[in-house]
């Protein structure tokens, strides 16, 4: 079942059936070698050492065959596990994920993706180690059991008597272990977040003189973790214990039957001794089958995780894509919601080519959603978003992305050099184009300040640069791309004077000859827009230029008055 699932996900045969065959061969050959102990001991114990020789040769051949099968299968298992399974799964995940709607990506999803990536990696152990442990541990004793049938069928019955019961407990171990693993994982992540909170809030907790109260919530999380462990332990260990008891009982049964048979004179001493040695030999590995089984469990969980992500549907691509005519952006009766929360309903907005439209409105009004729908991060629920007269759903993804440059509020930079980060905009850009974009984005002066200039690494997520500097990099990137439509999410956080001046100058430069849709916070940006759209309750409440809207004395003029007043705020009014 796992193998079928894996092959469905990988879209290609994995060769895992071959693996099983290889390990079965190894296990059977091992079993045959063991089984030769019966004739070998018959010969030796009756004083005919020479008679043991042919059987010794059979044993050696069996051991060699088992070794060779094991060697080949294990080597192949590694290649299959790493190359054909885990890395292929990782690549599939990655290329699938980038085609998912942006709405899919939340903080929790980053965590999930990491977990699943890790799981995909650990799945690499499955075709090799896990399959080997289970297959060999089952087939070698099974072969011996078959051989016992030729010695004395009553022993065979004794061997097999408790197998069904063992299987029942084996299943039970697998079921409980999955549950308790999940439980422990959840309690660990709760512990981590409580501790982080405790560390984060130190100043507040100490100021309140209540290190104790912060401590209480942490302590209760820690106690919960302890009792979760103990609980899952008590629950999980019982089936494991029962499984082991059943295996030992099987051994006991075989010993008693064997002793009875031999004392009754029904079976040869040599045969009984040989079979008892084999029975005791196999008791331990068989009792380990249950823990080995958890390996299968883990692999199955890993595949389920991968499956969940790979079956999330990506945005559909059009059968006959159409190119846009110009850089006009239109929203027609657009309705959109994030699952349960309606965001836009009946929004209509027209942004003519080469103009700048400022979106304003209270937080949660859906301003950013509007810009993201233009880039088709999601598909609308009703209505249409068009660029250059063509519905974004009728363009192929690459064409659409060529039309658009995005400067978002939380600028994300890759952990590489400044230059690389800008060049993402157009990998084949000449140096002159790069410099020009940097100049317009006011990035040149930032680069001059950096220790290694263009070659300075920006750090993880761009952490070596300040917020304003990061924004300038992303503007340069967008400028270099030179797309006709710019979607801009102005930063709300306060920038220092220098950065604020530079960023607004860069934005002005960017809006020349382009269609700009900006989620605007700065009063200067808003006032200079060609049209201002006031969003409220998921639709456009007012639309016009700054003077027009001020004159109409509606929501916009109230908003403008409040914001202007706030921007003149003084911490202690002049006496």
């Amino acid at each position, binding site marked *: 079942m796992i193998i079928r699932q894996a092959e469905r996900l990988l879209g290609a045969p994995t060769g895992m059936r071959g693996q099983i065959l290889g390990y079965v061969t190894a296990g059977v050959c*091992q079993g045959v*070698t063991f089984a030769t102990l019966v004739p070998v001991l018959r010969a*030796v114990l009756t004083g005919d050492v020479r008679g*043991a020789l042919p059987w*010794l040769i059979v*044993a050696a051949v069996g051991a060699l065959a*088992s070794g060779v099968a094991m060697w080949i299968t294990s080597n192949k298992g590694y290649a299959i596990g*790493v*190359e054909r399974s885990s890395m292929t799964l990782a*690549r599939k995940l*990655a290329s699938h*994920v980038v085609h998912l709607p*942006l709405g899919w990506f939340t903080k929790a999803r980053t965590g999930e*993706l990491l977990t699943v*990536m*890790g799981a995909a990696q650990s799945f690499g152990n499955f075709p090799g180690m896990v399959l080997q442990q289970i297959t060999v541990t089952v087939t070698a004793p099974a072969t011996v059991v078959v051989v016992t049938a030729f010695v004395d069928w009553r022993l065979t019955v004794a061997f097999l008597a408790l197998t069904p019961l063992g299987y029942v407990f084996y299943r039970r171990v697998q079921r409980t272990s999955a549950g308790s693993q999940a439980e422990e994982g959840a309690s660990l992540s709760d512990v981590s977040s409580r*501790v*982080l909170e405790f*560390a*984060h809030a*130190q*100043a507040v907790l100490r*100021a309140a*003189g209540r290190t104790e109260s*912060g*401590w209480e*919530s*942490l*302590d209760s999380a820690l106690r919960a*973790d*302890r009792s979760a*462990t*103990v609980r899952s*332990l008590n629950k999980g*260990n019982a089936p494991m*214990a029962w499984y082991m008891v059943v295996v030992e009982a099987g051994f*006991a049964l075989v*010993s008693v039957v064997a002793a009875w048979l031999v*004392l009754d004179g029904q079976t040869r*001493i040599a045969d009984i*001794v040989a079979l*008892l*040695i084999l029975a*005791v030999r196999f008791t*331990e590995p068989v009792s380990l089958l249950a823990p080995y089984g958890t390996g299968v469990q883990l692999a199955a969980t890993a595949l389920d995780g991968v499956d969940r992500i790979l079956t999330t549907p990506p945005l559909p691509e059009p059968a006959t894509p159409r190119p846009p005519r110009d850089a006009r952006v239109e929203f027609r009766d657009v309705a959109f919601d994030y699952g349960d929360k309606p965001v836009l309903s009946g929004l209509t907005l027209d942004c003519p080519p080469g103009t700048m439209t400022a979106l304003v409105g209270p937080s949660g009004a859906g301003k950013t959603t509007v810009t993201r729908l233009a880039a088709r991060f999601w598909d609308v629920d009703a209505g249409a978003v068009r660029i250059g007269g063509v519905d974004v759903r009728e363009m192929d993804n*690459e064409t659409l*992305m060529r039309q658009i440059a995005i400067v978002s509020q939380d600028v*994300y930079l*890759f952990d*590489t050099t400044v230059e690389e980060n800008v060049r*993402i905009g157009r990998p084949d850009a000449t140096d002159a184009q790069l410099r020009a974009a940097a100049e317009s984005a006011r990035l040149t002066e930032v680069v001059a300040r950096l220790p290694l200039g263009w070659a300075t690494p920006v750090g993880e997520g761009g952490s070596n640069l300040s917020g304003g500097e990061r924004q300038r990099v992303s503007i340069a*990137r967008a400028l270099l791309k030179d797309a006709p439509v710019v979607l801009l999410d102005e930063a709300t956080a306060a920038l220092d*004077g220098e950065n604020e*001046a530079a960023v607004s100058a860069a934005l002005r430069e960017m809006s020349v000859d382009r269609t700009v849709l900006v989620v605007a*916070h700065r009063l200067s940006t808003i*006032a200079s827009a060609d049209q201002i759209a006031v969003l409220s309750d998921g639709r456009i409440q007012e639309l016009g230029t700054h003077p027009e809207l001020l004159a109409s004395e509606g929501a916009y003029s109230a908003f403008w008055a*409040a914001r202007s007043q706030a921007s003149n*705020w003084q*911490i*202690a009014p002049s006496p």
Partner: protein
Amino acid sequence: MTQEPAPGGQPPLVDTGALKNLVRPVRGKLLLGVALAGLSSACALVPYVAVAELGRTLLEHGTSESTLVWWWVLAGIGGAVLRSLLYIGATQLCHYADADFRYLTRSRIARHLGRLPLGWFSANGSGEVKKAVADDVKQVHTLVAHAAADMTSGIVMPLAAVVYMLTVDWRVGLLVVGYVCVVLAVLAPRIQQGYQRNMDAFNTAQAELTKTTVELADGVEVIKTYGTASRSFGRFAEATDRLSDVCMRWMAGIGRPTNLINTLLSPASMVVWIAAVGCTFIAFDWTAPGTLLPFLAVGVGLPSTVLNVAQLGYAIRDAQLGATHIARVLSERPLPEPESAAVPKNSRVTFEGVTFGYGEGTPALRDIDVVLEPGTVTALVGPSGSGKTTFARLVPRFWDVDAGSIRIGGSDVRDIPTQKLLSMVAFVFQDVILLRTSVRDNIRLGRPEATDEEVESAARAAQIHDVITTLPDGYDTVLGEENGELSGGERQRVTIARAILQDAPVVILDEATAHADPHSEADVQRALGALSRNRTLLVIAHRLHTIAGVDQIVVLDEGKVAERGTHGDLLESGGLYSRLWKAQQTVQETGK
């Protein structure tokens, strides 16, 4: 096994004493568990011995000694049952010890954190804390829960087996044991080498894959808009290729010797070797035919137990690494508490010749002399990196000064008990810290004994009462990460309400707070106004026009006081302040 260099110097990567110290509180349980595991392995040998001896009894006496045969059967069964019971007991005990260990260690770390200077948290971030509390503890946990017991079994069992075989026939015993030893002695070092050679490459490649995965998720907006062909996506593909490569190289390096060991020491090979040696000895009449039985019973499984132990070595090293890091966090020096508690007379804050640095190199602040008079507003101004934030953080004693002193109401902050000091100083910075508990409790943190009415009136003053009443459970709504019921500005006002309730005579605030959320700018500003009334107020200023009316402006430049005075004074003197002022005015004009 990520190995990070510790900040400051090169402490030993692995401190073996650390593990011992850390595990000490649960040593009793753990030792008992380990002892049970040892006993279990000793019992595990009994069934093998019983079967072998049963065989020998039958060979020597035929079926005449039936009582003895039954006794051996009983012994075998007894051993098997005992082995299981003891093993289960051992695992259970070790896991209990582990649960205790995790609880005790984590609470020990947390209690220690509670006494560290606040500055430690801003310097090390939450990453360090999470690593110690979650990751490191988990690494050590494997040892406590599993490895210690498995290790003991892995040693006791083969030792007992070897002793048994040698007593049966020392020559055959030597040949069997010798074979295992020779194979391991020849091949094990090669595996070890291959392991070490590729371990670092493997860790690096794996970390790289994790990093690029995070990039893929966090940077997906960029990746989507700049096309999947962009280099960013290529980085992920490269990372998978590299990891796959390293894995294959690793396997090529250690795969051959590992497979060779597994083949040469496989149970089947052992059967052949033992049978061959035994038959030879019997053929030459050097030993009785029955001698073969103990070796077949015990010798065949000998290598697998030894190989298991080798695997566990890595678990121990992991645990040591984790323990070393935890020990390092636990050895961070706590902030010394004063022996006799000083009581500040009023809310005057005085910096006298204060010099402070974050370590080697140029100090962040030098020779600072500043007085914040009770009931006045002082603004800190200066280019970024001039020391404004450091200045502000020294007042609530995030760190201790290197020279000079900071006094509140005449008492050195180092002489005021931490709780008293922090209750006197409220600070509102841009980062909002709310606990995952009810809104009411979040506000009440400012003064635990406050009544519901007092909480409400603080919320009203902070312009947040009306918002709270619209929440699903009002003041009892639990604030969490997921339910984003409150916007940034609203969360900010909750923390301001907390500070208002705290009613501290000294307030430190970052002026950027007032502008952090444009949608509730005016409300936040009103809340800040309520907080700063009639207190000694220190403001870190970015937008100069917001502080034009304050009583005193202190201009910092490269850690020194460059200028001080009122807005008017400073404009007149034409120094750094007036230059900064002019620059900002230009921005405002061009902006509008």
